[in-house]
Each structure stands twice: as C-alpha cells, then as structure tokens.
C-alpha cells in the first residue's frame, strides 16, 4: 500500500475495478462517463477513488459528452479515460474521431455486451471488434488492446495509457462483460516498478510560442511516423486545434494536399511502430498444422481444447491477439504459409475471422467458431472446430468424456 492513495499488493478484484486501478496507476486523474452495463463498475470505482487522489470524476449527460470531456481534460494536461459498452461505444464514435484528428492521448474502455442496438445489456459479446477499427468515419489507424483476465485488464489499461501518451492518440481497451464482471487475483506492483510514459510536451517557456507547431512534421518523408510534442491549455502557446483537416499550425487547410499530409500523419505514426505496438501470446506454433487465433475471453476458452487436441495427437498451436489493432498482418501471413488451417473462436458471427482470412491470403483455410453473444463459447465448440479443421471428426465422440476431466 502506498501513501499517495495508490492501491498496491494482491487483491481479489473485479475486472472492471482492475481497469480503474490500472488507470489510476498509469496516472489517470480524470474520468467522464455515463452509466451503462456492464461497464458501470469502472465509473463507480472511479467515482470513489479519484476524489481520494485529487482527481476528477464526472458523470456526463451522455456518451457524446463523456468522450468530449475526456478530450478537453487531456488538452488541459490531465490523463483521462472513459468506459462504456456497445450503445455508448456507438455514441462515442463521433468524438473518438475528433480525438484521433486532434492527436489527443486518452483511453476508452469498451466492456462489450451483445448487440446490435440495446441487445443483451447484461450478457457478453465480442461484437464491437470491427467498430473499434472502423467505427468513426474517415481514414485512420487505431490502437486497440484485448485483455482476457482482470489481471490483464489492469496491465493493459496501463499499457493503453502509455501507448496513447507515446503516440498522441486515443487507445481502446476492448474487453467484454465476462472479463469485466469476473473477479480474480490481481497483483498490483509498487508504483516505481511500473513503466509510465508521458506525452511529448512543450511546457511554459520551453520555446517562443511563435515558433511552436502543434503538428510539426519532423520527418520529411513521413516514413518513420511523426509524433510531435503537444502543448496544453494555459501555458502561453495560444495554439489552435480543429477537427477540420489542418496544417502544422493546426489551422484549417481545405485542399487535397493538406488532407494527404494530415491523414498520412495519423496513419503512419501507428503503422511505422506496428512491431512495437503489436503484442501476441504464442504457444506450440513450431510444429502446428492448425493454429487457433483468438482474443479476450474466447482465447481463454480455447486453452483447454488445445491441450485436449494435442493429447489426441493433433498438432495445434495457439496465437492470442493481445493487441487487436493494428492487426498482426505479417505474423498471420507467415504462419499461413506452413499450416493447414486457422481456427478463430470469437463471440460474434465472424469479425476477426475475416481479418485472419485476409491476411492468410488463401494460403490456409480459416474456420470461424461463433457464438452470437449472451454467453461465452463452450470449450467443446472450439474442440469440435479444431478436430474438423484437422480432419479428425472421429475424435468428437470421445470428447464428451474428456469434458469431465478438466476438473
């Protein structure tokens, strides 16, 4: 336990609470949100915790406002976050776009439930994965992480803040109702053991305000991707920023050339750092003829079937996408060359499955394993798909007995 109001040590913690504690340790001191199941516990935790550490919690009138307040707070120099679920995520799309355009560090946690529309308020889904990628209009790159346990919800919320600060862009934590509402052991390190990244920033007096370019392009061909220092409100730089296509000064620039410069800047700063951003968990890939590609709670459900299938002699490997966007295109393409099939379990009708298919580029078969929200996948379903992909449907009968052996 630290004296500065920071929770440390081992706790039996709800996933949503773990996200809140991760945010606090990452330096988040502003939360704006709107109640929505199953993300509400993040707001509840923040409403109690932030006032204890001189932070600000506010419940806004809706998710449009929440996202904007988070952007405003970030431009006042405070690390900020919001959390929501499907319907609220839809409302946040508008100003997620503004955040991307203004190059604003902030974090948005989406605790996914079944959709579309009001859908299944209290039950799990993984149906916002493509909305995370393309939900706001226009061209851009986005960073999204996908935790599969409360511990990882804690760890990845910190990572989300670090990435958002480093690349000056909103980062999404795409968790789900199952992980958000699950309680498990969460180990919280001492603050000094955690790497914290702060945004590149000019402070008062660092330079002549007239010389400051809020979107300075330091790299002439843009290949390395530019993340330039930001100023914050109140420090004398008297900068201007706009959601309009803009130039280095942040001034509106209504030409095709300006748009090309502006959008490439947003895209390249992430694409050029893909290898650093992409985080994967891999197992048994060396000899694999089948690879299960999954993420979040569905990846957890896939672990037992993989073990069972390997016991039965199927050479199956495991690839967990901890970073979901940017997508590990190269890794999937390389793997596809040497394997028979990918199996992609997810709680939707096939979203990431399509990405795997795209990256496999016809070199390997891609089999989706779907459940349409409401409940997590049954390990049995995943095992069935692995057997099918391996051409070993004969194993399916015996699995019913295996099912008992997990305990």
């Amino acid at each position, binding site marked *: 336990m630290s004296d500065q*109001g920071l929770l440390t*040590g*081992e706790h*039996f913690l709800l996933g949503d609470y773990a996200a809140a504690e991760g945010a606090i340790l990452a330096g988040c001191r*502003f939360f*704006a949100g709107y109640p929505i199941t199953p993300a509400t516990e993040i707001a509840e935790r923040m409403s109690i915790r932030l*006032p*204890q*550490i001189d932070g*600000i919690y*506010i419940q*806004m*009138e*809706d998710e*449009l*406002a929440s996202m*904007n*307040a*988070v*952007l*405003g*707070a*970030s*431009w*006042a*120099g405070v690390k*900020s976050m919001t959390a929501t679920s499907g319907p609220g995520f839809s409302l946040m799309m*508008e100003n997620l*776009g*503004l955040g991307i355009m203004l190059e604003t560090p902030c974090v948005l946690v989406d605790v996914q439930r079944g959709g579309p529309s009001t859908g299944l308020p*209290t039950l799990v889904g993984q149906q916002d994965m493509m909305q995370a990628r393309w939900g706001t209009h226009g061209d851009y790159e986005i960073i999204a992480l996908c935790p599969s346990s409360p511990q990882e919800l804690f760890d990845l919320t910190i990572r989300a803040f670090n990435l958002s600060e480093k690349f000056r862009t909103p980062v999404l934590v795409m968790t789900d*109702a*199952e992980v958000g*509402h*699950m*309680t*498990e*052991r969460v180990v919280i390190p001492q603050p000094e053991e955690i790497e914290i990244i702060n945004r590149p920033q000019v402070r008062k007096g660092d330079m002549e305000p007239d010389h400051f370019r809020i979107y300075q392009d330091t790299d002439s061909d843009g290949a390395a991707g530019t993340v330039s220092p930001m100023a914050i*409100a*109140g*420090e*004398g730089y*008297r*900068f*201007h*920023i*706009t*959601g*309009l296509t803009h130039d280095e000064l942040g*001034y509106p620039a*209504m030409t095709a050339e300006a748009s090309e410069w502006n959008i490439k800047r947003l895209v390249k700063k992430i694409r050029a750092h893909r290898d650093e951003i992409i985080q994967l968990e891999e197992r048994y890939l060396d000899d694999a003829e089948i690879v299960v590609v999954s993420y979040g709670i569905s990846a*957890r*459900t896939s*672990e*037992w079937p993989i073990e069972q299938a390997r016991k039965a002699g199927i050479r199956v490997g495991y690839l967990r996408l901890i970073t979901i966007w940017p997508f590990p295109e190269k890794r999937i393409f390389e793997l596809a060359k040497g394997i028979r099939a990918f199996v992609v379990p997810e709680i939707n009708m096939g979203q990431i499955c399509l990405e795997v298919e795209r990256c496999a580029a016809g070199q390997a078969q891609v089999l989706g394993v779907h459940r349409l929200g409401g409940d*997590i996948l049954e*390990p049995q379903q995943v095992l069935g798909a692995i057997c099918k992909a391996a051409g070993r449907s004969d194993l399916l009968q015996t699995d019913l007995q295996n*099912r*008992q052996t997990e*305990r």
Partner: protein
Amino acid sequence: MAESDTWLEHCGHEPDPQSDWVTGLHPMDVLLRGERLPHIWCQGCGLGTALTTFIGALQWLEMNQNWDLDKVSVVSGIGCTGRIAGYIRLDSFHTTHGRAIPFATGLKLANGELKVVVISGDGDIAGIGGNHFIHAARRNLDITVICVNNFNYGMTGGQAGPTTPHGARAVTTQYGNFEHPFNLPYLAAAGGASFVARWTVLHARRLEWTLREAMMHPGFSFVEIIAPCSTSYARWNLEGRGLDPQKLGRRGLEVMKHYQQVGKIAHDTHPKDAAVKVNEKGEINAIIEGIFLNEPKPEFRAAIENQAQVAKERWSAAKKALDRRPKLSGRTDFIDRTDVQLGGFGGQGIMSAGRIIGQAATIYDKIEACFTQSYGPEARGGAAGSQVVVAVEPIHHPHLIAPSSAIIMSQEAYAKYAPNLTADGILLIDDGLVTLPEDHRRDLKTYGIAATQIAEEFGNSRAANSAMLGFWAAIVGAVSQEAMRQSLADSVPPKTLEVNLSVFDVGFEKGLALKKDA
C-alpha cells in the same frame, strides 16, 4: 451539418494568404490570428461585432482585473460562429458540432485555473448541442457560454433551426416555420444558469460590458447575442427582403435598423417573458435585451473539491483495513479443480459468499480462483446465483463445467442447480429452506444444515451464508478454514464480525461432524 468549402466564393471573398491584414496598429490585433484573415464571414454579418466585443471584454479584464489571457481557453463547435475559435489568438479549440460545451467542461474540470469560454452558434448550442447546454447550466460549472443567434443555420445555406421564429421563412420553411423556437435565456435559466443576458450586436458597448461581467461571474454564465445573417436569414424575412443580394452589407445594416426599432432594454425581465416576439407573418416585432439573471449560487468544481477531504478519510480507513490483513503462508497440497455453484434469493449474501470463497483461495491460500455471478436486474428477494472455481492450476474456462459442489439456500435454486451437479457431487442445503423432493438425485452426497435458524439464534439472520460457508469449508475442504475465516472477516461489516465468525464456526463444526459420520 457539413462545412461548406465553397463558402468563400459564396461570400465573394478572395482569400489571399500573402495579404497582411493585421498591421499591429489596432489595439485588438494582438488577439487576432492575422495570418488567418480575411475571415470567412459575409459582409453585413454580425459575427465581426461579436468577436470584437469579446476581444474588447477580454482586454478590459486583462487591464482592469489582472487576467492572464494565457489562461483563457476559447472553445467552439461547428458553424459560422464556430470559426471564432480559429481567429482569436488564445488557446482555441474548434471541436465537433454541438460538443463545445462538454469539451469545455473537461478543460475546466481538469484545470480549475483556466477561464473557459464557449462561443458558438444557435444551431450548435441549442440544436445538436442542446442537451449539453441544459446540463452544463444545471451543474453551474464556472464557464461562460456565448451563443450567437442568427435564427438559422447559416453555414449550410440558411435552413431553419431551433431558434427560427414561428412563421419565419428559411430555405427549408418556405411556407413559414411551423415549429416554435426556444427562448434561449429562459432555457438557460430553467436549466440552472446563474447569469443570463441577451443583447443584439447593435448594442455593442453594452454587450461588451455584459461579456466582462459574464466572464467574471463565478458560475455558469450565458449570453445570447442576436446577430444578422445578411446572406441567408435576411434574404427571406422582413429586414432584408427585396434588397440587392450583391449588397450584403446593406442587408446587414437594414437588420441593425430593425433591431433599433424592435429592441427594448429591460434588465431583470423574467427570462420567461424574454421570448423574441413575432407577428402573425413571423416578422420579429420585439426583442427584449439586458441582464435577466445574476445570482450567487454554489459553483460546481468547488463542490467537487469540497468532497476531497471526506474521500481521503475513506481511503485512510480502507488502507488501514488492508494493512491489517495477515500474511498467511498459503497451502502447498494439490487439490482438484473445484467448481462451486451458489444459489438462493437476493439478500441472502449469495454473491458475497462466492466472493469470500474466491478471496480466501487467492489471497490467503494462495491458489487460484475465479468468481462470476449471474448478473441481472433481480430485485431483493429474486433468484440469485454465483459461481466460483477454485484450483491450484490456472483457470482457463471461467464457467462451471459440471459443478462438484453446490451451496443452495432456496427451493428455487435447488430446482435450478441440483440437476447440473456432477455425478457424486456434493450438495449442501439450508434444510430449513429447502425440502428434498421424492425424486432427489441419489448419486449426490447431500448434507443439510439449518443455516438461517442458526444465524437467527445468534441474533442476525443475514449471517446464514456464513454458516453455509463454514459447512462447505469443512465438507469440501478446497479452501482452508483459516483462509475462509480471514476472508470472511475482511468482507463483513465490523459490527457483525463476531456473529458471522461464530456462525461460521458452528457451520464448520457441524460439517466436520457430518463428514466424519459419512
């Protein structure tokens, strides 16, 4: 509403980036982004006056109230007025349509030292951003909202909006507006704003004085500025109809003359009575102006800061409790994965019981546990269920596969969960609440305890779950007695600690005895 990139041509302006519009000779030049001029506004538009009165007020505050203008942030949304943020040399934010107020809320809350002013149009603030407007007024956050009302959506070409007078013409109300407009001062006041005023741009000096006062006001201040839209609104309505469309300045002037005729200064008018009045043809025939409301009221950010002390005391108490947690060595023996189903009705502590098992296992026995609950809008007294998995190895699939034990505290839960137990599973029931039916599964090892009755004997029926927990710990043995007692102690209110531990011990002893017999 979209930005029009043909707007410059539409207004007859030829932008010339080389031109030096700001000479530095005018006292306001220092607050203008000269490199961005000429502006996009039409001749005869009221926004130039709105901008200069705003700058005048800021300079007065700098001179007379020692305001540091580096600390002023200007936030606007989308539309003609929204462009003010791009011309003023201060920290300035051109946000999305309607969202200037929540953006400003974030700025102000995150840094209380900032003076935050929202300046945007009527469509932005009262149309698409209307909800944010009334909520910001309700909170009485210390920001100033200036709404330039030109009675229509100018930038997109003159469509009717939330302030277009009833009967007035616009591009989209060619037969007369069939809707009724907002009375913005009344809306702000009803929302909770503590400073509300209105001027037309004709009354430039009074407007500037009011803007000073509004920005100094410690709370949510709202100023409506009524301004001519020489290109669109004036084209279709009384003031500018019939005038040469090439002479927009003339149209603007006619509108100003009209304001002079219909404007009436009446401070302290009840905002309800401050509606812009029109005749049966939709022609404006009265505009009440002045400061309608200026009252002291607790400010929002201060209200948040006032709670910090209480919050910190609560943290200290929580920290003390956590520091008191004993460090146990944990268990070293292997146990099989144990899937536990808990069921009863709301209020029995079914959720807490599952959580207590999980916490005992992870924090004190130092093995793995995963606790999940059937989440629903169940009211107290409704069905409640929770599940916990305890294991030495990592728990992958978090749901129960075939529960090996169950803690059941209602007949309904028995009916729901008993069939799911694995063959030879252990069923623990509160036998004061559950009656086994004739077709009860013979393969199950069933143990009963009158948990609720025991708890009542100790004077607190709500401790019944503690009896069940003791009973479970003794019979199933997946979590140690010491760990369970400690986890229970962490989880119950201090006042009920003794009762809960006693009830737990009774359950544990009874469990041990029954297990021995079996």
